[in-house]
């Protein structure tokens, strides 16, 4: 698994209501995971928006069909959805005659996430590297591989520029808890980013994943 599957995602879902397919809960479930699952799929199908749309639809429909199999005691919703998404991606790529080594490549990356192979602490990153489009894409790609709560926390802090206090208010939590969450999210981002970058460089897959 690429994401830290045991990190809490605090989805607050009522699995019993979801299993009964109660409309409100199904809507809430979908709304909560739509963006993160889409982001997860988008880069794994080579940034093909049409294919990502088909796979995302297939993933959610398949997930709802087999929702009885989801056991919250064994893991959390986002990793479970990404497991289904992976299968859907593989099938979709095969159907379209696309390169099925792309998901294999991602699986390789998943395993490599356990170790950080480059060191962001060595030197300040050069401006020209930060300005490159590929860097921005790698950042987004890394973000899509983080646990749900981390993605939300980083988005609010860096892109919506909310303060810790404001984030706490939206979460119904404390500033201290937000600080811890942000710290963990940044740490997870670092691991994801370094691993993806290094793997791309090592395996020469950057053209396929990013173009």
């Amino acid at each position, binding site marked *: 698994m690429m994401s830290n599957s045991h990190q809490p995602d605090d989805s607050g879902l009522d699995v019993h209501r979801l299993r009964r397919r109660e409309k409100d809960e199904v809507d809430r479930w979908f709304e909560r995971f*739509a963006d993160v699952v*889409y*982001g997860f799929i988008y880069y794994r199908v080579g940034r093909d928006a049409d294919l990502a749309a088909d796979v995302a639809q297939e993933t959610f*429909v398949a997930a709802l069909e087999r929702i009885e199999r989801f056991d919250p005691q064994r893991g959390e919703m986002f990793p479970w959805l990404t497991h289904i998404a992976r299968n859907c991606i593989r099938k979709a790529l095969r159907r379209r005659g696309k390169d099925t080594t792309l998901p294999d490549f991602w699986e390789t990356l998943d395993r490599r996430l356990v170790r950080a192979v480059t060191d*962001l602490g060595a030197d300040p990153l050069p401006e020209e590297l930060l300005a490159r489009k590929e860097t921005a894409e790698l950042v987004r790609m890394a973000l899509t591989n983080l646990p749900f709560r981390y993605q939300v926390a980083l988005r609010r802090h860096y892109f919506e520029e909310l303060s810790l206090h404001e984030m*706490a*208010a939206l979460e119904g939590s404390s500033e201290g808890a937000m600080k811890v969450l942000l710290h963990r999210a940044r740490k997870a981002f*670092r691991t994801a980013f370094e691993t993806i970058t290094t793997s791309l460089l090592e395996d020469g897959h950057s053209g396929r994943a990013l173009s």
Partner: protein
Amino acid sequence: MNPENPDRNHADRTDRNIDRLLEAGGPAPKMPDALKARIRERLAASGSRKTVVQRNPRRWAGWTMAAAAALAFLFFTFWPMGSQAAISWSDVLDRLEAVRTLRAVTSTEVRIAGGTVTTQRATIHFKDPGLSRTELLAPGTDAATAAAPPISITVIHRGPAGAEQLILHPRKNRAERVSHVFRADDDEAPTRPIIDLASESWKRLKQITGEETSRIGERIVDGLPATGFEVPARDFFPATGATPVDGTVRIWAASEDAVPLLVELRFTDRAGREVFTTLSDIEWNVPLEDELFSLIVPVDWPLERTRIETVEYTRTGLAPHVTITVAPDDGEPLIDATGVASLVGAEQITRRQQDIPDQVRVTLELKPAAADHLHAFRAANPGRLLVLDFNGELNVVPKLDDTHPNRISFDLSLLGLDLEELERACFRRRP
């Protein structure tokens, strides 16, 4: 650099690099709204027996005037009024429950001597969960063809314990950002204070029960036969200073499939003027892109930031040592602390860019006899000022709340305490 502590230097550099990377990268891609709508439909179709089946999904997603005219022709020609099964309010509620996005136009007219004046027009957008956007247009502007920019654009993101509000002023190229924080002194979630009436009214519309409504007949709306439901305005509107004193809310829903087509509100305001507000050109469940609800301020626009913290007290009261009197200027006290029933709430407004102290306002609930005494005095002495003495430290003019006659609120900013300091110094949690 700290040559004594290389580990610390390494960690600092890492942190800085991560910050810069994230700032350079931008957010991860989101699922397009049109795709979300499509998947939601698929899930509804494959999921639940309780799912509301869309009998006419194209119209549900937004329909044109041409389609409406064609339907109207069919209705008039082949489908006489009253021949179809009557819809009930619960059918309308089913429709409202299935709404995830809404776009509509609101217009308010006030009747004055010699005619009516349009005082306000706005396009409104809602998207679950908790997003809204209101574009305030110049009176008389056609929302669809307006060439001039709106007077203001307000975007609100609501959460369980707070909200972020961005107000853009396109004609002045400036912006305001208000962060709302809601707090309660018990374990219950705080009641979310009203930030804008449009969102509150939308929420209330979905809470109307069948018992509250009465059917008022049928008429043609946008070329379609529509059934009308009416509810008293005073039951519909949230309690604010703008609450109508008398009036009705009418909801006209398509007789065919219960889709609401038009909402009309007629009421007399506190100044005695007749006001007529409509919600029209309603489009339900249309794809609304996330950019519509962006909190990003255009480059180079000055931004004023304000923080408003609202606290609800149910287990906290004034500390025993705190004294309060309300008296006419240079007169004997009309009430003192024994006339206070409870501490209701407080609000702190912090303006970040301005060098002015925080504004702290407190609201008390008075005992009915004390409140009656104050209102009677004010009615009998309209020219006389009432002054509240807070703990012998500050004299301020209190505000008597017309909506909640037993409540009184007052500004304690001049004490020089922020809200937390005030709570520590003057409030006590009840056992």
